[in-house]
C-alpha cells in the first residue's frame, strides 16, 4: 500500500498513527480521523453544491435560449458565491407565531438528510465513507429524514399554504417512495447484497441493461421524490404559492435550495452506482482511485443533466394524474418487475452471462409491452364509454 495507489486510506492511517503518537487511545483517534475525513468530504460536497447552482443556471439558460450568468467571473463562475453572500447578509425573518425551534431545525435537517447520503456513496473502490451492508435501505432512511424536514418546515411556519404545501409534498414523496423502494430491491436481488460497493463490483454488465425498466421507474420516482418538474406540485404557484418553504427567506431558504440541488445530483450519483456501474468504466477505474472518482462524478453529472433536461422540457402534471401514475401504474409495474426479475434471476442464475443478460432484458421488454398494452386497452375502453356518453347526449340534443 503506498500513497500513490491509495492516497486516501494511506493518509488516514498516517493521521491515525500521528494521533496515537500524541497519546490518544485507538477509538478516539479513529473517531478523530473520521471526523476530519467526514469534514473534508462534506466541505467538498458543499463546494460542489455551490458549483451546481452555476451549472443549473447555465443549463436552464441554454434550454431557454439564453446565456445565463456571465458577468461575475469567467463564464459567471463566481456568480454562486455572490448569491451566497447575498443570502448571508439578508435579514433573518421568523414569522410571528412560528414554532421557532422546529422552524429553524427544518432547513438544517433538509440539507443534512442529503449530505448523509454521501457517507455511503462509494466514490471508488478505495475511496468511500463506509461500506454498509444495509446501504440500500440507508438510502431510503435518509429520504425519510428529508420527508420529516418538509413536514417540520410546513407545520412550524404557521401558514396555511406552507402546511398545505407540506402535506402535498409529503403525500407525493411517500407515494413515490413505494415504487422506488421496490425497484431498489432489484439491484439487491441481482447482487445478493445491499452493500453499494458490492453492487458496483458485481456490475460486469451494467444493471441498466439487465433491468432497463427498473431504471426508468427509479428515475421517475427519484424525480418525484425530489419534487422537481414535472412533479413540482408543492410549488405550484397558482395554487399554494411556494409550497412548504414559503415563509423561509435568506440563508434558511438557501439551505432548502442547496439541499434540493444537491439531492438531484446525489440521486444522479446513486443512479450511476445502482444502474450504470458506479465508478467502473471498462477498466479505466483501475488506473488510479481518483480517476474512478472522476468517472463516478461524470456519470452523476450526466444523471443530473438528464433530471434537468426533463425538468425544463416537460410541463407540470396535475396532482390527480401524478398520484394515478404512481399508484395505478408505477407501483403495480414495479411489483410485477420485482417478481419477474426474481424468477428470471433464479432460473437463469447458472447459465452463460449473455443468456442471463438477454433473458432479463427481454423479460423487461415484454413486461413493458404488456403493461403498455393493458394501458392502451383500458384507455380504449374508457374512450369508447366517453364516446357512447357523448353520442347519447348528441342524440337527445338532436331530438
Amino acid at each position, binding site marked *: 500500500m503506498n500513497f500513490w495507489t491509495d492516497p486516501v486510506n494511506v493518509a488516514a492511517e498516517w493521521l491515525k498513527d500521528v494521533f496515537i503518537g500524541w497519546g490518544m487511545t485507538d477509538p478516539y483517534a479513529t473517531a478523530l480521523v473520521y471526523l476530519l475525513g*467526514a469534514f473534508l468530504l462534506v466541505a467538498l460536497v458543499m463546494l460542489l453544491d455551490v458549483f451546481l447552482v452555476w451549472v443549473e443556471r447555465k443549463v436552464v439558460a441554454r434550454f431557454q435560449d439564453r446565456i445565463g450568468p456571465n458577468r461575475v467571473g469567467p463564464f459567471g463562475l463566481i456568480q454562486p458565491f455572490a448569491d451566497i453572500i447575498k443570502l448571508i447578509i439578508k435579514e433573518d425573518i421568523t414569522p410571528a407565531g412560528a414554532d421557532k425551534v422546529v422552524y429553524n431545525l427544518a432547513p438544517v435537517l433538509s440539507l443534512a438528510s442529503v449530505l448523509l447520503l454521501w*457517507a455511503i456513496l462509494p466514490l471508488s473502490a478505495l475511496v468511500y465513507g463506509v461500506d454498509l451492508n444495509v446501504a440500500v435501505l440507508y438510502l431510503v432512511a435518509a429520504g425519510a429524514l428529508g420527508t420529516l424536514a418538509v413536514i417540520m418546515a410546513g407545520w412550524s411556519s404557521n401558514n396555511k399554504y406552507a402546511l398545505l404545501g407540506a402535506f402535498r409534498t409529503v403525500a407525493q414523496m411517500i407515494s413515490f*417512495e413505494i415504487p422506488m423502494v421496490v425497484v431498489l430491491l432489484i439491484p439487491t436481488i441481482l447482487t445478493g447484497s445491499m452493500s453499494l460497493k458490492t453492487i458496483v463490483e458485481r456490475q460486469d454488465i451494467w444493471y441498466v441493461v439487465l433491468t432497463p425498466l427498473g431504471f426508468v421507474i427509479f428515475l421517475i420516482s427519484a424525480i418525484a421524490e425530489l419534487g422537481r418538474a414535472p412533479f413540482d406540485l408543492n410549488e405550484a404557484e397558482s395554487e399554494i404559492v411556494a409550497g412548504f418553504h414559503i415563509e423561509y427567506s435568506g440563508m434558511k431558504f438557501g439551505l432548502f435550495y442547496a439541499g434540493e440541488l444537491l439531492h438531484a445530483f446525489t440521486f444522479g450519483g446513486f443512479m450511476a452506482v445502482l444502474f450504470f456501474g458506479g465508478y467502473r468504466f471498462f477498466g479505466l477505474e483501475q488506473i488510479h482511485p481518483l480517476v474512478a472518482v472522476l468517472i463516478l462524478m461524470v456519470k452523476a453529472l450526466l444523471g443530473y443533466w438528464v433530471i434537468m433536461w426533463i425538468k425544463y422540457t416537460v410541463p407540470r402534471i396535475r396532482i390527480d394524474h401524478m398520484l394515478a401514475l404512481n399508484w395505478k401504474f408505477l407501483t403495480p409495474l414495479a411489483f410485477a418487475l420485482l417478481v419477474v426479475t426474481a424468477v428470471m434471476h*433464479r432460473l437463469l442464475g447458472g447459465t452463460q452471462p449473455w443468456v442471463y443478460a438477454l433473458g432479463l432484458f427481454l423479460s423487461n421488454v415484454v413486461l413493458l409491452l404488456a403493461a403498455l398494452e393493458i394501458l392502451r386497452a383500458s384507455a380504449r375502453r374508457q374512450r369508447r364509454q366517453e364516446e357512447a356518453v357523448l353520442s347519447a347526449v348528441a342524440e337527445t340534443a338532436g331530438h
Partner: protein
Amino acid sequence: MHNEWLYIGVFLIVAGFIPVAALVLAWVLGPKKPNPIKQSTYECGIETVGESWVQFKAQYYVFALVFLIFDVETVFLFPWAVTLDKLPLFVVTEGIVFIGILVAGLLYVWRKGLLEWV
C-alpha cells in the same frame, strides 16, 4: 469497535454542523429589524383570515397509511432479496406469495376508489 456506525455518527454531526454554521453566520451578519408586517403570514398580500391550522382531508391519511403498510412490507422483502441465491427455489415463491398478498391490499384500496384524488 463499531467502525461503520461510528463514521456515520461522525458524519451526521458534520452534516448537521455545516448548515447550522451557515445559519449562525447569516444570523450574525444579517440585519435584524423586525416589524409586524414583515413577520405576518404571507398570503399573497391578503389579510390572514381565521386560524392558520386548518383541517385536512382524510385523503392524505390514506396515502400515508398505504405507504406505511407497503414500507413495512418491503422491509420484509429486503432480507428475502439478499438471500434469494442461497436458498432453494421455492423461497422465490414464498416471496411471490408475500408480494401477492401485498398487491391484494393495493387492489382493495384501488377498488374502494380511495386512490382517486378528490
